[in-house]
Structures are given as C-alpha cells and as structure tokens.
C-alpha cells in the first residue's frame, strides 16, 4: 500500500518534470539560436584562414546550420529521444562522455560543500535557536543575512586573495597542478585544488539551512512537549538531545536537498573564478562558443540534477509523514 503510494508519487513527479524539461529545452534552444556566434567559425577557430569556402559549406551542411531553426530543434529532439546527446563542437567528443567527466569533478565539489554547509548550518541554526534573543543568536543571524546577500564570486575572490595570494597556501586555480601528467597527480593535489572552491560554496550554503533550522528550533522550543520536558527537569543540551534533535533534523535534511538548485548555480560561479574544470566551466564555454549540443546536454543534465534533489526532499518529507501516520519509528 505504502510502496504503491510512493511509486505513484514518484511517477507523478516524473511526469511533471518531463513537461518542465521540454519547456526548459525549448527556451534554451530559442535563446542560443539568437546568438551571433557562428558555430562553424567557433568550430574551426584559428584554422578559419586555412579552410576553403567549399569546405566551410560542407561543414555547415554536416552540422545542419543552414536548415531552418525549427528543423534544427526537431533534429536535436529526435536524437535526444533516441538517447543521443550529439557531439560537442568545442571538445569534438561525445557530449555524454564530457558531461560524465566534468560532472565527476563538479560532483566532488558539490558533495563536499553540501555536506560541510549542511553540518555547519544545522549546528549554527541549533545554537542560534537555543539561545534565541541573545548576542550569540544575533551574531549568527547577522552572519547568515550577510552571506545570503553576498555574491558567490565575491567570496571566491576574497578567499583567493587571502589564501592563495597573501598566504600562498593553496593554488590559484584549476583542478590539478599545471604541467603534470594525469598519472602523477596525487589525491592530496586534488584536495588542495578543491578546497577553496568547496569552502566558497560551503560558506554560502550555510545561511539557508542555518536560518531554517533556527526557526524550527525556536518553534519546537515553544511546543507543549518541550514545556513538559522542562517540567520533567530536562534542560540545555540534554533537552535538545532527547527532544530537539530528531524533531529538527529531518526538516533540515529535507530543506537541504532542495538547495541543489542553488548549489548548482553556485558551482558555475565558483568554477569560473577558480578555473575549476567542472560542468560550470563547460556550460559557460558552450554558451560563449555556440556549442549548442553541449549546452543543451548540460541544461538537460542540470535540470535532472535539480529535479532529483527536489524529489529526494519531497520524498523524505512524504515518507516521514507516512511513517508518523502509521506510527512507525524513524
């Protein structure tokens, strides 16, 4: 019974997502089709001079550049439905394999910052909520509001100035050291490169979850069962550990899943500043050079990624709700 309910829930969400995805693709395609950049030119780059007009014509023919826009769109859709995302003009590689490779780098970055900002945000939220109205609470709130209105790239630049330029502790950019063979790159090298971008995203990601958790803690402290727990002689950390933790943790995790979208947006900016070779870098390059297949591929992928985050958040809430209704323990 429960399983069929959950399956129905997922199915419904997926259907809604399919419609949304179609709209997103159509919009993205319309926007790139206004781009003044000539795909053939960006494909050939410096070799533009060497290649003859006839050859250019042939390339354009092969790409389908001369066909009407709607036809191009349907060509792409047809291939997409067959599971083929096409070939990137920039990388001259299968779009799917590029996304795979780039996503791995971005995923490490996002996973670290998601976990770090979640843990710190939750902790800060709890501290603020438990000390509501005090100077600690106000300091944390001030910190969160400031961060919420701070652009990611600016934090990234600040961190670069302090840690890379002044202190010289971390590399200025890229994902691996320059001039080193891929086999020679150690895990430590990678960690060193990922640290600053991850820190940037963690700092930014804290505010949302902290403010949400604070609100939840304040709400719960007002609840009748906390008054009763106090009457039982519980207080402070014991009170929170017994009655606050579980009651605030699940809403917090759930909210944190919905931040996938912001996380993805943040990654694009952070990767730009740190020249970190992830999906964010790739999508910016694709946009600037009219690499339509790659751009649309990443758009599809990122929409899917955010969808999964939101679905997980909703699912978590739904399962908790079902469990509470049926009286099972979590």
């Amino acid at each position, binding site marked *: 019974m429960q399983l069929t309910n959950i399956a129905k829930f997922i199915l419904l969400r997926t259907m809604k997502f399919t419609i949304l995805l179609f709209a997103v693709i159509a919009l993205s395609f319309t926007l790139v089709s206004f781009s003044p950049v000539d795909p053939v030119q960006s494909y050939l780059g410096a070799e533009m001079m060497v290649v003859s007009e006839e050859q250019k014509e042939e390339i354009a023919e092969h790409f389908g550049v001369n066909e009407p826009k709607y036809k191009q769109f349907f060509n792409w859709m047809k291939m997409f439905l067959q599971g083929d995302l096409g070939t990137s003009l920039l990388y001259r590689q299968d779009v799917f394999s590029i996304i795979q490779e780039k996503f791995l780098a971005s995923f490490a970055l996002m996973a670290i910052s998601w976990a770090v900002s979640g843990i710190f945000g939750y902790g800060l939220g709890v501290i603020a909520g438990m000390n509501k109205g005090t100077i600690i609470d106000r300091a944390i709130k001030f910190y969160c509001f400031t961060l919420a209105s701070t652009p990611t790239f600016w934090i990234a630049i600040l961190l670069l100035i302090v840690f890379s330029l002044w202190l010289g502790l971390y590399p200025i950019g890229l994902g691996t050291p320059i001039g080193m063979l891929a086999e020679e790159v150690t895990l430590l090298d990678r960690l060193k490169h990922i640290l600053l971008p991850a820190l940037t995203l963690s700092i930014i990601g804290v505010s949302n979850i902290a403010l949400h958790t604070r609100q939840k803690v304040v709400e719960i402290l007002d*609840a*009748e*069962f906390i*008054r*009763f*727990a*106090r*009457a*039982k*002689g*519980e207080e402070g950390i014991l009170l929170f550990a*017994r*009655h606050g933790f*579980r*009651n605030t943790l699940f809403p917090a995790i759930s909210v944190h899943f919905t931040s996938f979208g912001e996380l993805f947006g943040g990654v694009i900016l952070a990767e730009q500043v740190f020249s970190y070779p992830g999906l964010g870098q790739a999508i910016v390059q694709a946009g600037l050079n009219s690499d339509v297949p790659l751009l649309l591929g990443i758009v599809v992928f990122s929409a899917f990624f955010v969808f999964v985050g939101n679905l997980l958040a909703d699912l978590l809430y739904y399962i908790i709700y079902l469990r*509470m*209704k*049926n*009286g099972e*323990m*979590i």
Partner: protein
Amino acid sequence: MSILHELTYTTNAVPEERHANYLLEVKNFSLTIERVEKGYTPERLYVIRDFHLKIHHGEIVAIVGASGSGKSLLADAILGIHPKNSMIEGTVNFEKSPLTEKRKKQLRGKDIMLLPQMTNALDPLMKVGKQVQTFIKQKNKQKVLKSIFQKVGLSPTIIKEIPSTLSGGMIRRIFIAMALASEAKLIIADEPTNGLDLEALDELLLQLKILANDHRAIVMITHDIEAALKIADKIAVFYAGETVEIVPRKNFTKKGEKLRHPYTKALWNALPQNGFVPMDSSQPSPSIVIKGCVFSDQCPKATKICRIKKPKLQEISDNEMVRCLYA
C-alpha cells in the same frame, strides 16, 4: 462510576498532628510579566497578584478559575519554568523549607511533577514507553514499565508506539502512568479534564484519586468546578490572580449558604443544577493595578469601601480562608 463514588466519600481525613505539616505552602505569591518592546513604554502584567495555597500529603486541592486567568503560569512558576521576563514574589515552602529557584530545578520531575493538559505534551517522535521510562528509578525498568501500563489500563503492546497512533484517552493514561512511575510527592495537574466526555472524565478523576490515595498531593488546576467538586478535598477559588476563597468541598451545599465569597457563590449558582443564575464572567485586565477588592466591579454586595480598601485573606479555620470585607 461507583468506585469513584466510594473513593470520593472516603475522604482523606488529615490527622490532627499533621495539620501544620504542609507539603506545599504558598503565601502572598505574585507573578508579574514585564513586556518590553522597542519604542513602547514597558508594560506590566499582574498575572498572579496574591495567591495562597496550603496542601498536605494525600490531599487534592483544586484551583478553580476562569480560563485565561493565569492558572497555567501558576503551575509553571511552582515548577520554576515560568518565562524569563516574569518576576515572582512571595513565599513558597515545600516540605517546610523555602522552594528557591535552585531547589525547584532539583525537584522538578522528581518530587514535583506536572501532569500536562494537552495530548501534544508528548514528544511526537519518541516511543511512549521510553517517555514513561525516564521517570522510573528502580532497576528492572521494562518489568516496572509493563506493570504500570497495566495498572492504568493500557496494553503493554503500545509501549513501542509513538504518540500520534494513540487516542487522546490513551495519552492521558500515559500521563497518569508517568505520575505513577515517578516518585513525585506533589503532582500539579494542569487542566486535566479539558475536552473529556463524562465517561473519560470519571475515569481520569478516579485515577487522580488513586494517585492521591498513594499519599501524593495533587493540585488540580481547572476551570471546571463540577469536576473539581467530584474529587477535591478543598477548592481554592482564583479570581483575577488572587485566591479569593479556600473552601472545603463539603461547604458546597444547596444555595451555597456556607460559601463566604460572593464570587464563589456566583460560580456555584451558575451551575445548571443550582439555578443556572447567569454571571458576568469578565475579569479585570491584568495590566491595571487594582487598589481595592478585585471583585468589586462585579460584586452585588460591593460598597464604596470595597473599591478603596483591599480585603485581606482571613483564616477562618485551617481549611478555610476568605478574602472579603463582608464575609
């Protein structure tokens, strides 16, 4: 019902020698809340103005007052969990020594226990058995827990359930189970009869009576004078934050001739079986300072002097007190 009847009329007679040996003694107790908001002059709310109460072991005292008269705050204040912006004054003695904030902290949950009013007083995500178990101090907790559940008429199979699966009646039994499990000498029941039908009410009152027969003192805070009269040994009538009368249950007779305070009489006569005499139930706002008698605006017997001179609480006997110039 019949058991309740019997229990009710075997009054817990207090032996003479224990008369002065109160478990809890509250004198001249007041609680003021100070509301400070930016840009406004601080506002003071005199929620409890002049409260008196004495209770022995094994005794049930009902504090009866209209809804919203600050009764729940009284419970919080005795437990020491009143809001931070409130100030309390007066004497509170527990087992003959002053109940300081520090002592409240040590005693709450152990010697003094709250019996909450609402079913949402249980942690929604914690198994009910575990919530009761925190009160059990003996070894062999599981066994004790099971026997307590059976005692209050709950199946031990629900030990592993969370509160949302239980009915309101079951949750009230859990509260009673907590009181039984604890070694509390004083139980403060905050509106325990709210929203109960007659049958559930009698069952609850019976269980409170069982607790009292277990030598525990019970302060029952309620607005339901009928329920209070079913089990309480004494009734403390609470009006506008003051104790206006403390009266043994046996004095509630016929037209209320034995009641001394006009407010108590009005409450008694407003009951359907006693004539259904309507009364003006409004109370003076807690934000004003009252010079004379708090009831003078509603009192049919009030004279000029009532509005100027505040009557003192006169002790008539050990069980009776009244605050009225004309009593």
